[in-house]
């Protein structure tokens, strides 16, 4: 009896792969109806509301025209989305939307857009790193908001409360069509 179960045990030991399927969840924009329309949309966004993150073919990062290390991206994004000091170079701050109790009329930047542009030759890992940092920045902001108003972590909030927090910090990441910026 023990022999047979040993045999089976060893079989399952060998074939087991513990890795669970995990991934970075994202949502794609719906397909463009008209190419021209898309360009108009992009142009509509005011310059101060736009954070442009470019990744070149050597996996280097350029944010708002300046070379940036990937480790600094998270703070940069948080600063951009928050705009605590009402900086005229950062997105417009609104206080006209009621998010429901206990958040009320909180400061938020509803029109901000983060635009990610990458080269055809950018490595997948570099692209994923940037996406990861952007999601991480939003997650941190939501967590801070949840701690501030509900005194709980974002994950521990009820579904309705999570929706409230999500409304304050909606993920606004737009991705441009890949272009060849050169640099080969």
């Amino acid at each position: 009896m023990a022999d047979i179960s040993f045999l089976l045990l060893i079989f399952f030991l060998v074939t087991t792969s513990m890795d669970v399927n995990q991934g970075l969840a994202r949502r794609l924009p719906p397909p463009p109806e008209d190419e021209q329309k898309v360009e108009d949309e992009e142009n509509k966004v005011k310059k101060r509301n736009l954070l442009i993150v470019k990744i070149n073919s050597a996996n280097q990062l350029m944010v708002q025209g300046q070379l940036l290390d990937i480790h600094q991206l998270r703070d940069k994004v948080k600063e951009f989305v928050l705009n605590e000091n009402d900086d005229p170079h950062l997105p417009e701050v609104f206080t006209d939307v009621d998010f429901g109790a206990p958040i009320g009329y909180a400061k938020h930047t509803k029109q901000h857009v983060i635009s990610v542009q990458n080269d055809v030759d950018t490595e997948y890992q570099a692209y994923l790193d940037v996406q990861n940092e952007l999601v991480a920045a939003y997650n941190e902001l939501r967590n801070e908001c949840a701690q501030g108003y509900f005194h709980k972590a974002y994950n521990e909030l009820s579904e309705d409360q999570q929706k409230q927090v999500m409304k304050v910090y909606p993920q606004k990441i737009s991705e441009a069509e890949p272009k060849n910026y050169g640099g080969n």
Partner: protein
Amino acid sequence: MPALNTSSLPDIIFMLLFFFMSVTSMKEVTYKVIIQNPSATELTKLEKKSLVRYIYVGMPTKEFQKKYGAETRIQLDDAFAEKKEIRDYVIKEMSAMGEEANLLTMCIKADKETKMGVIADIKQELRYAQALKISYAATQRTSY
């Protein structure tokens, strides 16, 4: 010194056996491409396996390199596929799912050294197939 009582050994082994049986997940397909997962920190688990379909992207394995070369290739289910086949594949899978079609999640399992050109093409195809929920498969890492 008395001999060790082994009468409960089968029970213990059976317990271990059941543990490994329950955590084992058999591979869903045979990989024809080499994939080294990229790593990230903000991961979410893919829930409901029946609603997830995979797209594998990477260099063909040794045995297929003679035939297909070392260019990055796309694998759908058990076969290599062209970019334009993705749309048909997704639409077929969606119609097979019926009412739950809008819950379909496309999981992109790509090698970490894949060029973004290929990924961007795949994303574009998925957009046109209206499969907008996607997930980039990655392994957890704690920090840099």
